[in-house]
């Protein structure tokens, strides 16, 4: 039994929750949030990894109740703001997001009676923008990445910060890029889940870099259990078009990146994110999104190098939000879709 999946609002806090997920009927969606007792699944790759001595397991983060790995951080950030009394009738949230955090945060916030203004870069796929609105976010879209340069930061982050500073009575900004709760979420859930699911056998963790909450929190936990676990971060080439991810040159925006926890940073041509995602969909039955494709490509590089191991890849979300991006990056995918 754990209090992990239990919303900490007053009404439910005193109830005793049955955490046997085989028999459990959930009283609200938040009880589905993952933890050691209710982990997101690990699924082995069977066709696309030819190295029997180095099995690769995908951690399917799209099995989170709001559809992506960002559920973990969003919940932790939201609960922290609630606990500190930062939210109220006239004060909602504002957050810069490339989509997933916003979708999780918006749906969670609305279900708990708060509102969210999501500031998003224009280049994220239309599906994500519409999903944000469906999830109940107000949307502010800005032209972003006009000319990447030192000191600029990120347009959506700066605009969200502006709202939080100029309209502090209306908005509070969780700030997933700087908030230690983002790291804590993964230290408390993702790390312990993987350790338990692999019975401590994990040798390599493969993850991408965005806010860096996932890599820092999960790595910190796994390294405490076994200091020899290798942490591999996979990043797209500069000038990429993989929503949610950052090249190291863009990492200045995240205060959560801890280089001491990362053994290797693998740079992968971002086009491969899309082709590998398609291969995962068509060969493994894993309907993985482009960031998962990128991580998989990086993992294969290490498998070839290290030969032996037990790898876990964190697959952030599935393909459904990326059909328009896939059409853009996979030649021929859009053909034959009209009469």
């Amino acid at each position, binding site marked *: 039994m754990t209090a992990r999946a239990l919303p900490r609002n007053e009404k439910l806090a005193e109830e005793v929750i049955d955490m046997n997920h085989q028999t459990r009927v959930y009283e609200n969606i938040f009880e589905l949030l993952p933890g050691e007792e209710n982990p997101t699944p690990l699924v082995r790759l069977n066709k696309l990894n030819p190295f029997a001595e180095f099995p690769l397991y995908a951690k399917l983060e799209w099995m989170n109740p709001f559809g992506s790995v960002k559920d973990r951080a969003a919940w932790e950030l939201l609960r922290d703001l609630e606990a500190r009394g930062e939210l109220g009738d006239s004060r909602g949230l504002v957050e810069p997001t490339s989509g997933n955090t916003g979708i999780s945060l918006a749906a969670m916030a609305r279900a708990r009676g708060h509102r969210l203004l999501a500031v998003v870069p*224009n*280049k994220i796929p239309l599906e994500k923008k519409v999903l944000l609105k469906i999830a109940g976010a107000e949307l*502010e879209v*800005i*032209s*972003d*990445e*006009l*000319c990447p*340069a*030192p*000191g*600029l*930061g990120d*347009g959506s982050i*700066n*605009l969200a*910060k*502006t*709202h939080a*500073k*100029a*309209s502090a009575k209306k908005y509070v900004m969780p700030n997933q890029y700087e908030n230690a709760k983002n790291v804590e979420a993964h230290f408390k859930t993702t790390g312990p889940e993987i350790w338990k699911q692999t019975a401590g056998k994990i040798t390599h963790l493969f993850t991408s870099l965005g806010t860096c909450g996932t890599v820092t929190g999960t790595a910190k936990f796994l390294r405490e259990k076994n200091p020899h676990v290798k942490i591999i971060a996979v990043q797209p080439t500069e000038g990429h078009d993989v929503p949610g991810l950052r090249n190291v040159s863009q990492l*200045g925006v995240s205060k959560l990146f801890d280089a001491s926890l990362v053994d290797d940073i693998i740079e992968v041509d971002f086009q491969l994110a899309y082709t590998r995602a398609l291969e995962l969909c068509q060969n493994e039955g894993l309907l993985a999104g482009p960031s998962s494709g990128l991580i998989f490509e990086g993992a294969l590089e290490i498998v070839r190098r290290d030969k032996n191991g037990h790898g876990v890849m964190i697959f952030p979300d599935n393909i459904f939000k990326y059909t328009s991006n896939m059409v853009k990056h996979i030649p021929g995918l859009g053909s034959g879709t009209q009469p």
Partner: protein
Amino acid sequence: MANYSHPEVLVETDWVKQNLGKPGVKLIEIDVDTKSYNAGHISGAVGFNWQTQLQDQVRRDIITKEQFEKLLGDAGVSPDDTVILYGDNNNWFAAYGFWLFKIYGHKDVRLMNGGRVKWLNESDKELTTEPPKITPTQYRAAATDLSLRALLPEVLRVQQEKICNLVDVRSPDEFTGKVIAPPGMTETAQRGGHIPGAKGIPWSTAVGADGTFKPADELRAIYVEQKGVDPQKETIAYCRIGERSSHTWFVLKYLLGLPKVRNYDGSWTEYGSIVGAPIEK
């Protein structure tokens, strides 16, 4: 200040904070993303929209002297005021505004070093959504100084005669013609590449990690010693539509004190579309 030739044209964020609301000090925010001002600005700052207020709305040109006078009059600025300009993207359009203020002879105009991002990220600095209280003036501009501006015929001439430094401040991919404009930008040209003989020195070369200008000795080492800008010659800076090049124009003219520096605001969207104009890739 950092050994600049004209330190009087630059102020720090702390100076702005200390001088907020003082008579004779006027703040104007000019952003690339025109949403930023409305989301929050420095108390008392007026916002100018570069698309609708700093350019003629019919022909492609800067606003006329009369339009400039009306703009500043409506903003409550007097010719004797100290005007502080700041904006997003490390002051791109604030620098463009600075150039315009100098063309129309405003005596005391300065840039806030680091722009709005620096202010935003300093915990002791506040922003507001309150509109400023403005008392309109009858602004009368001084003599127009068109020596700060390069027009196409002159650019074609100096290109041919090779008598002038040409500084292309766009990104490397724009310089080599791999792209015509940064992704998502609507203003483009018919051809990619650069003006023959131009040196590619991206505008961002001039700023440090926090977005403030590098000290003069570093700037001199980059522009003069490494990139070969000849300080004895005249210089023309250009980019795509003239805003990033205003930033470099400011650096070369005021921070390094080069003798005659002009901004070619027609820039690549004009030059890259001219039939028969020589181009290098």
